[in-house]
């Protein structure tokens, strides 16, 4: 090689002449979409690496993707459904408690991964963050993105299980699922951005996160029916948990159970949408504010 030729795929024309200005930033920091788009392959590689590495040296390997929710489902069905007799709360669907739980695990698992893996993602990868610059927003994004593949596998299982349990699907409602997945992603990304940035700053979140995850699972009624709440005067508090609406909507769309069983109501869906957008923007804001000092405080 004697002369320097810019690689044919070096990006947009004038890429070589692109000027990078490095100076202190103040206040709200926008997102550099151009840069994000330019290195979008990195997101793909980060997700791919996580998937590749996650089950290495595990005898069951990818089998764990299936086993984890299945074991959760069996546990919840036995403990809450049968032992505690909560299956009686599913009026007309008493023997479908397992699908009822599984349908909720779909969005919940994604959200739980966003909280745990997403929240710890930056701290876990601080050796990279401290040594090289790249769009760091991709780190928590990749953690959530990886969970999306788990969700796809779980979806196949839940549909099979539902068919096996004689659930009568509603095609129209099933078609709404992609939108619900997007809504779950909105919430999950928001919480991953927020927690990952906070964890870098305050390591307390490392201990707080598993606890938060547990509490949220209870108040999202993943393992037991929302009918338990009945007409409590505290029911309005559910509006402040965006995941409640998501979980209820998933049950409604996949299982086509009546709202009295799934606990679905339009106001909860609206709370999820508004809450999700709020969470997403707050998460993004906190992340970008903290990002300029990640390397110093990590």
């Amino acid at each position: 090689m004697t002369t320097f030729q810019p690689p044919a795929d070096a990006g947009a024309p004038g890429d070589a002449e692109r000027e990078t200005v490095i100076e202190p930033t103040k206040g709200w920091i926008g997102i550099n979409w151009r840069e994000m788009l330019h290195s979008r392959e990195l997101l793909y590689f980060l997700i791919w690496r996580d998937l590749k590495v996650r089950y290495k040296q595990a005898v069951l390997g990818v089998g764990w993707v299936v086993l984890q929710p299945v074991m959760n489902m069996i546990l919840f069905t036995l403990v809450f459904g049968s032992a505690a007799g909560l299956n009686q709360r599913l009026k007309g669907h008493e023997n479908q408690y397992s699908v009822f739980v599984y349908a909720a695990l779909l969005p919940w698992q994604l959200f739980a991964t966003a909280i745990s893996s997403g929240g710890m993602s930056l701290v876990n990868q601080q050796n990279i963050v401290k040594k090289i610059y790249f769009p760091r927003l991709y780190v928590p994004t990749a953690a959530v993105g990886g969970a999306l593949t788990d969700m796809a596998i779980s979806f196949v299982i839940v549909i099979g299980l539902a068919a096996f349990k004689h659930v009568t699907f509603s095609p129209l409602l099933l078609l709404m699922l992609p939108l619900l997945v997007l809504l779950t992603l909105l919430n999950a990304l928001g919480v991953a951005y927020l927690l990952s940035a906070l964890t870098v700053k305050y390591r307390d979140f490392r201990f707080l996160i598993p606890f938060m995850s547990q509490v949220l699972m209870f108040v999202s009624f993943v393992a037991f029916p929302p009918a338990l709440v009945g007409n409590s005067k505290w029911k309005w508090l559910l509006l402040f948990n965006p995941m409640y609406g998501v979980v209820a909507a998933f049950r409604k769309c996949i299982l086509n159970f009546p709202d009295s069983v799934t606990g679905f109501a339009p106001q909860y869906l609206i709370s999820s949408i508004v809450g999700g957008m709020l969470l997403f923007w707050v998460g993004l804001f906190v992340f970008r504010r903290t990002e300029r000092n990640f390397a110093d405080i990590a």
Partner: protein
Amino acid sequence: MKPIITVDRLGKAYTLGHTVDRHATFRDALVHAAKAPIERWKRRFTPPEKRADAFWACKDVSFEVNRGEVVGLVGRNGAGKSTLLKLLSRITEPSEGVARLRGRVASLLEVGTGFHPELTGRENIYMNGAILGMKRVEIKRKFDQIVAFAEIEEFLDTPVKHYSSGMYVRLAFAVAAHLEPEILIVDEVLAVGDAQFQKRCLGKMKEVSEGEGRTVLFVSHNMQAVSTLTQRCVLMSKGRMAMVGPTPDVISEYLRQVGDATREQVYTAAAVPNKPKITRVELRTSEPNNVQMNGRPMEVHIELTTPVPINGARLSFHACNTMQEPILYFWCHDTEHPMAREAGTYKLVCRVPKMRMFMGDYTLRVHLKEQAGGKEFEVLEGICPFEVVMYGRDREGGWYKNTCAYLEEGNWDVSKVG
């Protein structure tokens, strides 16, 4: 043409007293917030640079780098070099000032950033390339070159956790070296790897800058590497920019700064009333702090004081290596340069026009004697330690200690005879 890198009064402040500013835990933050809200908010909105206890890791750094130039960044540990590189590679944000980089930047602050031990060599090449900012097609195109450079063909599909450290470093450097950035920022990567590999890395960096017209910003404590790779250097000292200029000048200044204060540069002794004595030996090296550049002049100034006339005085000195093996011999005899024929102090100066000893550490051994077969007055051993360096003398493949003891000039004639 505009300079490819313009740095203007760049600075980065850190807060030293982390007890108040950086709350170790969330609880601390809460407690503090409750206790002294006003104080806290006041501090919260006071950036480090405005605080009384601010520590400036680097400040007021301004320089320019032209396209295709290789610029060295030198200085002692803690001088702010790494902070400066972190700022320029956007890992952390400056507290003040501005830097403009015109072109694609790749930084290599640590070899093997983003390598995952569980992934195979092949997988890590793609992963590492992506983190360094390469596109997949680009990595694919360079793949064979990278593998060849790293010499890991056989182990391509082995997880890198089973690699030897040498293989690991080779692979990591190979990926980074095959990036095609307009600006390459490199920090002390040559500190790792064996001599053979360091040689290839240096060669590759030279190829990148000379052959392909890239701009390289290069941090190293290895002055040999700095002197052969760069034409211009920035010297950092205590967070400030101490000097910008041609490499030899900056290296001289750097050597003066890092100089070993314990090195006795001048030997002195008091005269005694009853016998001749060497009272002073001063070595004048070409660089500060007893560092001698190979091929440059060197002087040895010796004073001897005698209370009585010496019969056929002979003064000589050796330059010895660390094994105390004599490498050079210089002498001054009364028969050629009449001296000490009456009591008094005499000064003898030995000028070496081109000091050709090979790189390494040396000391002087000085003898003072009478005529042959006579008395030996004094032998001084291991005085005036000095180091011979090869800075600025380039050789394909670099220099290694103990290759030889002495470097003579020679001319080659090559012709085809058959």
